[in-house]
């Protein structure tokens, strides 16, 4: 079976800095893959390459065997890749429902009008924002904005969902809710790549982990094996933030 997403020797340089260096991995259908590594190791850049925010300098990325790495971001979104951003990006002039609708109207699975409104309300309910559809998003708390962003990413029913530190910055109670929510998505069979630092979340959610360090992939396998890998331990110990 072809992988839901496959990354082949993806490379991205910014001038002299190679942020992603010959990275290859596969994500199977319905798998939740953790993409981990110390700060600055190239995780966000990797997601940017997949979503089309950046073009790879070399290498190839394919969605169910179809090459997407030479498409513009909007075409990749239409093919079925949706994402959230490390620094949350909501649309301030729209209310919560409008923000979620943005993901429903132009993406992979499209709807419009009453149907899109209905979908947006249902998704807001799902991420725990039932009844807050008409709230202006800039009046929302950080976690609620993150929820809106997740609902927006889900609104096009994507084939692959990219989450960039979606759980970062949440307090312990919120974190529990957040983990339960992602677990719920996993159970419904979504294919997810999750960049994360929260170890509890990685242990309880991920089927498999890819570890990056200084732009390179240094480990790839099931969570416990990978986290026990001496090279991974060394990479994390070398990074004060981890």
């Amino acid at each position, binding site marked *: 079976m072809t992988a839901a997403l496959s990354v082949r020797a993806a490379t991205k340089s910014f001038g002299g800095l190679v942020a992603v260096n010959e990275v290859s991995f596969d994500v199977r259908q319905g798998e939740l893959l953790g993409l981990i590594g110390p700060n600055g190791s190239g995780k966000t850049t990797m997601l940017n390459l997949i979503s089309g925010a950046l073009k790879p300098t070399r290498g190839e990325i394919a969605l169910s065997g179809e090459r997407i790495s030479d498409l513009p*971001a*909007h075409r990749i*979104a239409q093919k079925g890749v949706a994402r959230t*951003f490390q620094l949350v990006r909501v*649309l301030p002039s729209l209310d919560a429902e409008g923000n979620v609708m943005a993901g429903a109207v*132009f993406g992979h699975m499209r709807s*419009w009008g009453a149907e899109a409104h209905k979908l947006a309300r249902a998704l807001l309910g799902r991420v725990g924002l039932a009844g807050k559809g008409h709230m202006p998003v800039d009046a929302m708390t950080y976690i609620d904005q993150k929820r809106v962003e997740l609902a927006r990413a889900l609104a096009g029913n994507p084939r692959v969902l990219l989450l960039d530190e979606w759980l970062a910055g949440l307090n312990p109670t919120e974190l529990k809710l957040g983990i339960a929510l992602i677990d719920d998505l996993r159970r419904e069979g979504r294919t997810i790549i999750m960049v994360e630092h929260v170890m509890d979340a990685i242990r309880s959610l991920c089927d498999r982990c890819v570890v990056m360090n200084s732009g390179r992939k240094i480990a790839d396998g099931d969570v416990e094996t990978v986290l026990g890998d001496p090279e991974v331990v060394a990479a994390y110990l070398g990074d004060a933030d981890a």
Partner: protein
Amino acid sequence: MTPFTNDELKWLGAGAILFAVAALLPLVDQGFYLSLSVNIMLYAALCTAWALFSGPTHYVSLATAAFYGLGTYTVGLGIDAMPYPLLLAIAALIGAALAGLVGAATLRISGVYFVIFTFGLAELVRQLVTWTQTKFATAIGLYVFTDLFEQHIYWMLVALTAAVFLTAFLINRSRLGFAMQIIGNDETVARHVGIDTARSKIVLFMISGAFIAVAGAIMAPRYSYIEPPSAFNPMISFLVVIMALLGGTKRLWGPLVGVIPFTILMDQVSARFPNHTMIVIGLAFLAIVYLIPNGVTGLLEQARARWKARAARMGQEKAA
């Protein structure tokens, strides 16, 4: 298309009545007020068409004179050979085509370059027309003789303005309008939810350019004698920006709030102090950009938001 809501039907009805009333003006006066109203209606159409594109994208276009002049010249060149309504349609196509070319070439560059590029473009088109005329024709200008009078021009402008408003209204409630709203908020998000941002902007610029060219074509008979400095007058581009920004571009009717007082002001200034129009325009431009960047409608909306917030606070205090 989604069905109209009651609110939308009310707006449509109110708009239709207002335009019908405006169309009655020539029955009341055929002199000063009609001529002033032609200018008001012209700038209402130009500014609303301009804001259709520049409002949501925040790209300031100074190419208005280019579209307008091409519309005027379409009529000037074709009036002896083709029926006038056909020329209006051709003007629309030429305007859309030029906007499409400019859009494809420039909408990927940043806003500042876009301003300069569109200004340069307007001048370039003007120079090209002048050069072609001196090279291949005997006279610099063109005569436009029609049996259209001031009131006919006025009625056509009313119809055009109504068409611009209706189009903008329909776009705003369409997927394209929604896409533009998202692009105006965050272009990165727009791309990542699947919006072809370049295409959306180009389509909107083309619609805007087509309307502006038609405005020029409608005005052609009023000039009688068309020459590049008047048809491609860069002043048109600047006035449109000033009036649209004065009114505010966030609402459909925003530009209108700037057009009416400013057209009257300019009319007074050019009648009484004909040598000082540039000073007034320059000062107005600075004042708007520094003092009311969101226009009069922006101010009104801020005031309304403050008032609402205060009312909400008072309500809470009462409840407590």
